[in-house]
């Protein structure tokens, strides 16, 4: 017996190691099927692995970020002023749009209150940087540099401004593991924007996000936008998920399809993400402040427009229809800045302004265009009778503008 053990020692050790790991796998699968999370031992192994790998990863990441930061922040600043100006214009435009949309949102809130449904708004987020991956393309998880100490907890939604990314799977002291939406074990409730078809999003074996268990529907078209449905208690409603790339028939079930998505967030090139740490049934303070600014801006713009219209109404016109021709504002000598008058013709004829013999519409040559040297407006508005201009108002601005 002893010689057997000695002789096959290597093989026996191999078998023991393999059997131990297979048993461990079986126990983990059993726990997972029972709806339980990782066991204490597995959790400990993950903690150790994270403790060993995370510090060097953070160091590598911060070194890389430092170098690229020096370049990006001090050297590569071309076109920044132009970009800043463009962005400012975009912000102004978006503020006005937001104020307009606010009315719809308020109405939605009122309707939701009637239906006793509470919409959750993204109330607080924590920005985090992606510092590492799982190292294998069979597992779509990554690590962020924020953990329990930063208020991160399990099952918090992780997003980017482009769209949703995943959810926090595991939390450690200063790091956290995020399960991306294209992992096979992920899940999120989604809704198609145009057709309102609901489904469950998960990753397929090729790492593409897809909506499963969808009944075949001709209305589902490539390019349709997909949003979060809000029913999974993780992602707030209405966040962009992606757009339909193609629809594939389910080979195992007739009448069902898989909807393959192109994710809105760049899942392969994630640098910075936002972890939603709190949702509330009202807008967060900074957003309320922004809305107030938008409303103020919108109000100011409306007031400005109203004022200018009012002033335009009060300003004396060049032609006052209630006054005779010799008392028109154009002829008002009390005006310190009188409107320049056309030169007096040396040889007046029937086309000369004020001769009283010109036919209607013949005050200016070339069908309403002012003659050279004629001041704007005068060519069309001075000639008598005034009814000529008023009878053809469409022409007057044309001549004035040219």
């Amino acid at each position, binding site marked *: 017996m002893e010689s057997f053990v000695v002789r096959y020692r290597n093989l026996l*050790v*191999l078998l023991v190691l393999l059997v131990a790991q297979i048993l461990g*796998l079986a126990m983990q*699968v059993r726990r997972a099927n029972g709806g339980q999370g990782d066991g204490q031992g597995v959790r400990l192994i993950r903690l150790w692995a994270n403790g*060993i*790998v995370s510090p060097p990863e953070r160091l590598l990441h911060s070194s890389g970020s430092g170098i690229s930061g020096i370049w990006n922040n001090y050297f590569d600043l071309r076109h920044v002023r132009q970009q800043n100006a463009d962005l400012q214009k975009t912000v102004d435009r978006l503020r006005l749009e937001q104020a307009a949309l606010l009315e719809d949102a308020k109405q939605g809130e009122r309707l939701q209150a009637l239906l006793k449904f509470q919409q959750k708004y993204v109330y607080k987020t924590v920005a985090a940087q992606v510092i590492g991956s799982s190292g294998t*393309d069979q597992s779509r*998880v990554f690590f962020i540099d924020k953990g329990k100490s930063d208020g991160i907890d399990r099952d918090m939604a992780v997003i980017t401004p482009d769209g949703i990314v995943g959810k926090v799977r595991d939390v450690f002291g200063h790091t956290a593991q995020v*399960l991306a939406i294209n992992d096979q074990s992920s899940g999120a409730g989604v809704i198609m924007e145009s057709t309102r078809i609901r489904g469950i999003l998960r990753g397929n*074996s090729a790492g593409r996000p897809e909506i499963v268990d969808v009944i075949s529907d001709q209305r589902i078209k490539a390019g349709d936008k997909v949003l979060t449905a809000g029913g999974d208690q993780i992602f707030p409603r209405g966040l962009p998920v992606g757009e339909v790339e193609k629809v594939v028939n389910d080979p195992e079930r007739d009448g069902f399809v898989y909807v393959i998505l192109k994710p809105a967030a760049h899942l392969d090139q994630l640098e910075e993400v936002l972890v939603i740490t709190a949702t509330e049934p009202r807008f967060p303070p900074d957003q309320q402040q922004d809305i107030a600014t938008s409303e103020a801006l919108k109000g100011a713009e409306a007031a400005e427009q109203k004022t200018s219209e009012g002033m335009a109404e009060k300003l004396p016109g060049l032609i006052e229809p209630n006054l005779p021709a010799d008392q028109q504002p154009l002829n008002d000598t009390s005006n310190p800045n009188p409107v320049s008058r056309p030169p007096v013709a040396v040889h007046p004829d029937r086309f000369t302004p004020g001769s009283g013999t010109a036919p209607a519409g013949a005050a200016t040559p070339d069908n309403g265009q002012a003659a050279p040297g004629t001041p704007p407006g005068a060519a069309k508005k001075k000639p008598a009778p005034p009814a000529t201009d008023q009878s053809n108002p469409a022409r007057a601005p044309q001549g004035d503008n040219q």
Partner: protein
Amino acid sequence: MSVLTADARREFEIHRYPVLIYALVPVLAVVLQAWLPRVLGRFAWFDLPLVITVFFALSRRNPIQGSLLGGVLGIFEDALTGHAIGINGIAKTLVGYLAATIGILVNVENHAVRLFLTFVLSLVGSATYFFVVRFLLGMSMDTNWMSELYKALGNSLIALVLFPVLDRTKIRD
């Protein structure tokens, strides 16, 4: 590759390395394996823990040590994924054992032989991983064998550069 007799096998040199190398190189391999795919994206066709397992198993020529090192590195890799722990562990345990066993049987001092062995053992590791996921765990897995082939080639190229560098760190009698 030449197969040697039992007497000749005993004459094979068992390489020894400083403790720091034993400790640092595997950790560095796991760290880089987790970090580099972020930089290289889908072109990260390599498995550094596997390369390190093959190197130490071939150099030490001890199947038990090879199996243990492969198992530990594989479990660490699994711990960084969201999957059950042991999938990579089983695959690399087997790779470590096979590499050390081949190291006993065959003269693996030649770079070309080590390159070829790394390539073959990478494919063995991928096949074992697929077997465990598909048949032991019953999970669906879309295996792109071209990608596995590229990964095996990448591992071989890394081994071509890394093995001579690590050879320089061995303790000489």
